[in-house]
């Protein structure tokens, strides 16, 4: 789970609304006089959940969706991620014929079939993943990105199958494999079949490893549950974006279990780095060159 602040902001961002227009506690350049609230086109400004300053959306977007004031990394979708990561025009989408179904006839307050339809209409995507081949600073690679905007990036059969096919293709073609994770975990609505995607992707990575393949796992905010507990933590090299929430259990579940306050920064990238669980914390602006450098060192 995500702390209320960033979740609220992410939602505001997604819906194209600016944050609440109360005055910032710290006064900086954003003190410049602004016209009446109603006169501001929606979404032109937003409040950064990192530093609480009002920032200009276009400036933030031009800065790879990173706050120009405090370096807070906003969440981005798979399409934007691929655009940032791969050389312009080099990305070739693959495995696009895979579409989700409702194998269990799952129904909670809504049916899974309805949820899928709503999410597909909302996002214009078929499921929570984009994959294909592309070049990163001139180095060819198989790339797979989870998409948080679709059902919290949860992994069901389509996500698991797409990742597995991406891994298998990387193994066959002896290409470096890069998977960018952001996910709430396994998708409950496909129950046991979602769970099995953890074993399936991990087994595919075992073969990639047997073949001497390189896998760079990039963890972004948030990466939790069954995604963390399978392919995401199996990278030869694991990179994490600054401040990302990364863990097995969500903070709320842990808090309910142990009944005490969680320490500041618990389960954030920097905490994982200190705990020896990731190799490097890499700012978004450096990600391309870091990935390229690791590919070079691996000789792939």
């Amino acid at each position: 789970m995500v702390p209320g602040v960033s979740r609220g902001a992410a939602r505001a961002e997604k819906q194209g609304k600016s944050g609440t227009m109360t005055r910032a506690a710290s006064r900086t350049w954003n003190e410049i006089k602004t016209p009446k609230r109603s006169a501001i086109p929606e979404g032109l400004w937003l409040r950064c959940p990192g530093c609480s300053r009002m920032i200009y959306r276009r400036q933030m977007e031009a800065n790879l969706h990173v706050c120009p004031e405090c370096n807070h990394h906003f969440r981005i979708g798979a399409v934007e991620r691929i655009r940032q990561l791969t050389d312009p025009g080099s990305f070739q989408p693959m495995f696009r014929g895979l579409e989700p179904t409702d194998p269990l006839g799952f129904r909670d307050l809504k049916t899974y079939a309805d949820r899928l339809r709503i999410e597909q209409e909302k996002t214009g995507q078929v499921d929570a993943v984009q994959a294909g081949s592309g070049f990163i600073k001139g180095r060819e690679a198989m790339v797979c990105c989870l998409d948080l905007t679709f059902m919290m990036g949860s992994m069901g059969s389509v996500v698991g199958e797409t990742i597995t096919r991406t891994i298998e293709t990387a193994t066959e073609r002896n290409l470096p494999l890069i998977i960018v994770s952001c996910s709430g975990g396994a998708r409950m609505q496909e129950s046991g079949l979602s769970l099995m995607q953890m074993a399936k992707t991990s087994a595919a990575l075992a073969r990639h490893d047997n073949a001497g393949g390189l896998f760079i796992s990039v963890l972004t905010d948030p990466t939790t549950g069954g995604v963390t507990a399978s392919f995401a933590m199996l990278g030869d090299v694991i990179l994490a974006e600054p401040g990302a929430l990364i863990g097995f259990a969500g903070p709320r579940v842990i808090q309910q279990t142990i009944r005490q306050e969680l320490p500041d920064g618990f389960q954030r990238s920097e905490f994982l780095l200190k705990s020896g669980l990731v190799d490097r914390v890499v700012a978004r602006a450096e990600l391309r060159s870091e990935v390229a450098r690791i590919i070079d060192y691996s000789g792939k």
Partner: protein
Amino acid sequence: MSYLDFEKPLVELERQIEAATAARDGVHGTPPGVALDLGTRVQLDDPDALRAKYRETLASIYAGLGPWETVRVARVPTRPQTRDYIKLICRDFAELHGDRRYGDDPALVTGFARIGSIKCLIVGHQKGRDTQERIACHFGCAHPEGYRKALAKMKMAEKFGLPIVTLVDTPGAYPGLGAEQRGQAEAIAVNMLEMSRLRVPIVSVVIGEGGSGGALGIAVADRVAMMQFAWYSVISPEGCAAILWKQANEQTNAQAARALKLTASDNIELGIVDDVIEEPLGAAHRAPAEAAANLEKWITSTLLNLKDVDRDVLVDRRYQRFRRLGAYVDKSGQFNGLVPDQDLPK
């Protein structure tokens, strides 16, 4: 004997049997044929007839068990656990402790054992029997060091060509500060990756609870079975209800249990498990020895079948076993749906 709420008709029957037996045999100085007044009218039935009725009622209750009731049977405190089964089916068990890195997690038991004539490595979750053991075992929720211990011993088994038997019984891997800091997710992920390529036969049985990644972390196997009243799913019914129904209570838990398709027969249908191991009348806790005998039979016959399979073929088949799991529509041609008559989302 303590009873679950849906077993209520049995409580009265048991009382009647006791009273009838007492009446027939005479206890506490009461002459035979005279019933003790136990507060209500006592029928002077034949105890054997009552016992037959008890068995019939028990059978009919368990024949109509819903998914949520199944979950509750799987959690009965007296249900046999890994250490019970080890006592019942293994000869000469040599427990092996510790992951050589951090500690020894009592929630995962590992050791050499003989089952029938087969020498093997046994790995299993232990929930704990008395309060003290339960607390030490975190109620069967293993820590990273537990999963790492399991893997270290499994790799050793591979080296010596010993087959591996795993018994799954966990509500889930432990969600705590230390577990996160020591890499719970990494430990489970590495186990799945490594188990998929171990060059010895692996068989797994969900003996009680198969809770999510914590279960799968020792269940990537050539053959997977479930005890008849075990459950296996991506999340517990309560966890699912709390998230999707926004509240966990008896009603939503039951709805979630139904939706999750977590029973043995559901998991067979989804292709997730290969076999169901029958439990005695009224579930394993009523006759542990009988449950253990069925379990032993499945383990030995399955391992016998896998014994002579070429190692490359074995590992490849294990890969394919998990590779094909999932349900999706492939617009480029084939449909991999396991339930093809479902309405597809537009």
